[in-house]
């Protein structure tokens, strides 16, 4: 499957990294990329390295516990997300690799604070779309 399977609503279907990224999600793995020449890591994953211009990338696992940089609970969703609210958007730092996403629906903001620990897990939505979400750790 292609990248149109990523997230609640995908706005683009084609990307050099999209198919592999979705395949990994379906296997339960959240992955970014790392340049095999200069070692720069990327999340979101990139097919090319802006640091050394290499196109030789490898997939790296994003796992373990991260640090919650910030979050917000959204009460009014944009078009396509109106019935999805409330949901919590967040940015989590996994040892220098930052990941943007949502917290699991059953997490309340009262349990969250900037600087708290969080982890990521892959998720399959009711309509078959795949993605990842955060949980307090």
């Amino acid at each position, binding site marked *: 499957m292609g990248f149109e399977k990523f997230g609640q609503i995908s706005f683009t279907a084609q990307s050099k990294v999209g198919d592999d990224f979705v395949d990994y999600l379906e296997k339960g793995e959240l992955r970014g990329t790392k340049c095999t020449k200069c070692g720069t890591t990327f999340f979101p994953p990139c097919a090319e390295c802006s640091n050394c211009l290499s196109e030789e990338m490898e997939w790296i696992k994003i796992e373990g516990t991260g640090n919650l940089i910030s979050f917000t609970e*959204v009460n*009014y969703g944009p078009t396509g*997300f109106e019935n999805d609210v409330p*949901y919590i958007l967040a*940015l989590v730092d996994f040892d220098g690799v930052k990941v943007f996403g949502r917290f699991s629906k059953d997490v309340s903001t009262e349990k969250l604070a900037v600087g708290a620990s969080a982890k990521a897990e892959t998720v399959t939505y009711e309509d078959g779309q795949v993605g990842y979400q955060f949980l307090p750790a």
Partner: protein
Amino acid sequence: MSKDVAIIGVGQSAFVRGYEGSIRELAFEAYSEAMKDAGITSKDIEASVIGSAPEYDKQRSPSGLMAEYLGLNPQPTFNVESVCSSSTTGLWLAYSMIKAGLYDPVVVLGFQKMSEITSADSQERMGRGADIMWESPFGTMMPAYYAMHAQGHFARYGTTEEDLALIRVKATSYGKINEKAVYRKELTVEQCLESAVVASPLKVFDCCANADGSSCMILASADKAKEISSKPVYVLGIGSGTASLTMTGRNTLYGLDCAKVAAKEAYEMAGLTPQDIDVAEVHDCFTIAEMMAYENLGFAEPGKGAELIRNRETYIGGKIPVNVDGGLLSKGHPIGATGGSQVRTIVLQLRGEAGDMQVPGAEIGLVHNIGGVGIYGNVIILGR
């Protein structure tokens, strides 16, 4: 200090909800005011720069339309877009063209008729000003991104929801006396705090008012400005910067790096410091954005922005009056027109023509205009 390029005319339409006319007619309002202000006609203009965020326009390539409607054929016209900072990016382009000796004078026109689409559609399109591959699929929108910056600022510096409400209260006190503002009502801190939460901790009244509007600036070389105008206002410094569009590339979520880069460049070019600024227009698309601007522009030390508003230092009579025209919060935020409107406010301030909103004796002014969630930052320092 550079005094090579001047602003010789400014204009702005009223910022309104649901403008009852076409975009060409909306643009004409600001254009006509600026041209009359400069005392010239379309045949005197050598090039035009048109700024708008095109996702709101049904018309494709609006610069062609505007050049025709405003009588600016056959001179060259350029379309620029940097979301909410499009018209100061236009100013940057006009400034560069004049400095290069290519065209002189140059008109910069910004416009946006946001009411052509619904508010939800508008949020969705603004959200797509962020990364559509990796962030939009989660249901992002502008208030949410700025809310994450507010949460980050609160956690790092102890800023509170009340501090943000104070910024909105200030905006409403000036929006009330600005005839061109869309939001003319005054609000109390309590009303701000009781308004519905859009994206925590930001509430309805932490968000700027969407509006339809247009703005116009006419720029000329110093020599030409002296020929044409009795009251030129000079561009003393100009700076521009960027930061990653994707939040994962940001160093912090409690300030905007693009603004810091732009400010440093503008201050250095002008040979001035934050203490030299008498009046400022900052990009307060949300209350937290004004708070971060205080710090990113050096009006307050990092983390001390809240003290400025608590002590009313950003009101007229304070140390550094900010957004004394109501700002984006109350004057309104028609994306493509906003930067030009900010510049107009400062030009009027420096000419002593700001009426009830006048900062007495203002000689040096600053404009801070941000595109997207801190993707693009433009800072312009103006002086007589």
